[in-house]
């Protein structure tokens, strides 16, 4: 037999009394685990949706209106291309991708389309000053572009999904789905635009936006053909959601005071509100588990010490020192915490899997990280709540304990 056998037997002898404390810890932990689990997948889902939408921050001329997010760059207002350099050489955190755009109306096949100049990524990287101090020197992938299907896909995919492409020749053009269909063009065909013949390198997938009626060519080619110089209509930015919530838009505004900076506020706001609500609820439940669970355990342990004082006195008469008695109660608290933590994790994960799709509209899968978190919190609460009763037991006067009963 070992001391732990003694503790184990005592737990089972008085299991009904322990049940209330166990349930308090179990429920507290399970609710926290469920919320953490749902929040994680909810954030991931929102991030994925944001990513699917493409850029979530737009830099526009000051006077531009924002009635159509996707057509906001077609308002005949311009600002210097130098704004891109200001952004890339700044110390702003959370800029995942930049896509400067300059758009002009064009006619082809008797119909009006938009020719949009974009700057391929390889030209950003070619500029040493931008590469060394700018956004490409920072860790890439801040969480917006999580698990994007086709991250290594062809250029047309990355243009649609991430608003950037790796490279684009001076006489190459990528056509939106509607434009290609209207002009009956396929990849490899040529199309005259603004008096220059462009080779169609890709037909972009349908997006359901104004982009379907666009032709994308190299920024500097479009600028040259339009005769407007180094100007832009818009800079599309993929910003990290967490940085947007920390004021990325305001920081860009400070950096570019003569430009208008807009974001898909309702989506970002939803996430921010969800995150804040989940964060507050997690804190609330953590407080509940600490207060209610802790108080319940402390109350149970004090009662347990009182009930067992003859037993403790006997053990002391048989030679048990104060450390042995303290250890017996703390061991019991440790097991209670471990059981409550593991049980709470299992219950919370099941709750998340069942309630997640109904409450947050996202599928929720089991995660391992909350297990460590759940066990840690449960053990800490149990041991902390037991310490005072355990110390009282260890300091029990054996003579008084044996005589008073």
């Amino acid at each position, binding site marked *: 037999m070992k*001391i732990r056998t*003694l503790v184990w037997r*005592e737990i089972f002898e008085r299991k009904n009394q322990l049940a209330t404390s166990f349930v308090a810890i179990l429920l507290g932990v399970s609710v926290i685990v469920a919320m953490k689990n749902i929040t994680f997948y909810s954030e991931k889902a929102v991030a994925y949706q944001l990513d699917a939408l493409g850029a979530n921050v737009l830099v526009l001329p000051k006077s531009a209106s924002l009635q159509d997010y996707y057509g906001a760059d077609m308002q005949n207002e311009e600002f210097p291309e130098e704004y891109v350099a200001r952004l890339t050489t700044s110390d702003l955190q959370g800029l995942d991708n930049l896509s400067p755009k300059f758009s002009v109306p064009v006619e082809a096949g008797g119909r009006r389309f938009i020719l949009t100049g974009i700057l391929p990524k390889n030209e950003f990287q070619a500029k040493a000053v931008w590469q060394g101090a700018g956004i490409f020197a920072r860790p890439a992938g801040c969480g917006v572009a999580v698990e994007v299907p086709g991250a290594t896909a062809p250029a047309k995919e990355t243009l649609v999904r991430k608003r950037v492409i790796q490279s684009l020749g001076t006489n190459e053009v990528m056509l939106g789905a509607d434009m290609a269909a209207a002009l009956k063009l396929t990849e490899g065909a040529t199309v005259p635009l603004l008096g220059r013949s462009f080779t169609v390198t890709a037909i972009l997938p349908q997006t359901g936006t104004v982009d379907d009626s666009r032709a994308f060519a190299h920024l500097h080619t479009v600028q040259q053909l339009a005769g407007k110089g180094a100007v832009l209509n818009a800079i599309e930015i993929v910003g990290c959601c967490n940085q947007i919530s920390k004021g990325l838009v305001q920081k860009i505004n400070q950096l570019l005071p003569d430009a208008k900076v807009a974001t898909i506020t309702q989506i970002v706001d939803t996430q921010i509100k969800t995150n804040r609500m989940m964060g507050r609820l997690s804190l609330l439940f953590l407080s509940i588990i600490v207060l209610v669970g802790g108080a319940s355990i402390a109350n149970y342990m004090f009662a347990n010490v009182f009930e067992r004082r003859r*037993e403790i006195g006997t053990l002391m008469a*048989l030679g*048990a020192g104060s450390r042995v008695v303290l250890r017996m109660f703390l061991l019991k608290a440790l097991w209670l915490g471990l059981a409550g933590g593991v049980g709470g994790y299992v219950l919370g994960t099941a709750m998340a899997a069942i309630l997640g799709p109904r409450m947050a509209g996202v599928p929720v899968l089991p995660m391992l990280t909350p297990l460590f978190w759940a066990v840690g919190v449960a053990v800490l609460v149990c041991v902390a709540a037991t310490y005072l009763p355990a110390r009282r037991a260890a300091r029990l006067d054996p003579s008084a304990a044996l005589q008073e009963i």
Partner: protein
Amino acid sequence: MIALESVSKHFQHRGKAVAALAGVTLEIPKGDFVAIIGPSGSGKSTFLHLLGGMLTPTEGKVRIGGESLYDLSSDERSVLRKKKIGFVFQTFNLVPYLTALENVQVPLVLAGLAEDQQKRRAEALLGRLGLSDRLDHKPRELSVGQQQRVALARMLANDPALILADEPTGNLDPETAEGIMDFLGELNREGRTIVMVTHDLRLAGRAKRALRLVNGAMQANGPARPGVGEGASVAENKSLCGN
């Protein structure tokens, strides 16, 4: 040898000091069998707890083998109890959720003995007390006599030199009580010192000598059995105990 030097113990009761022991000086040589008799509330249990290192005296010294018991720390006294002292209680004080075997193993666990050694020794002790067929029984599944025998086996687990018995037969029928007293006598003959508290003068007569404790004072001591020593006779003590 156990020596008490002017030992007093006072308790506070409703703001007033109550003397449980008043200046007791006593020597108990190794191998002695002493019965402490006296009416309820006379300080018998207090005396036993003092000897067991569980109750610090208000004044005086308690020495066991020349060592001043209360100059040791609480944990050092626990170690001393574990090695040298065995307790027998009137209500047995068995751990209710452990089996007879596990109850006897408790002192061995505290002494840090390996599990197989614990089990062997506990089985042997329970066998010596005629409980080989009750090893897996919990206290509530045993008769009171069997429970006291388990308690005796537990007391012997660490082979104590000093046995402190607090009304060891108080809850037992006369026949079972006789058996327990026979066993205590056997342990005394093995060389163990026994101090037994009782109010049963007939059982006190089984000790080598009896001491009377009245209002915290040892009034007289002497042989309980004729010829063993001097002091109050059992007949004299009878009147003190009201039996």
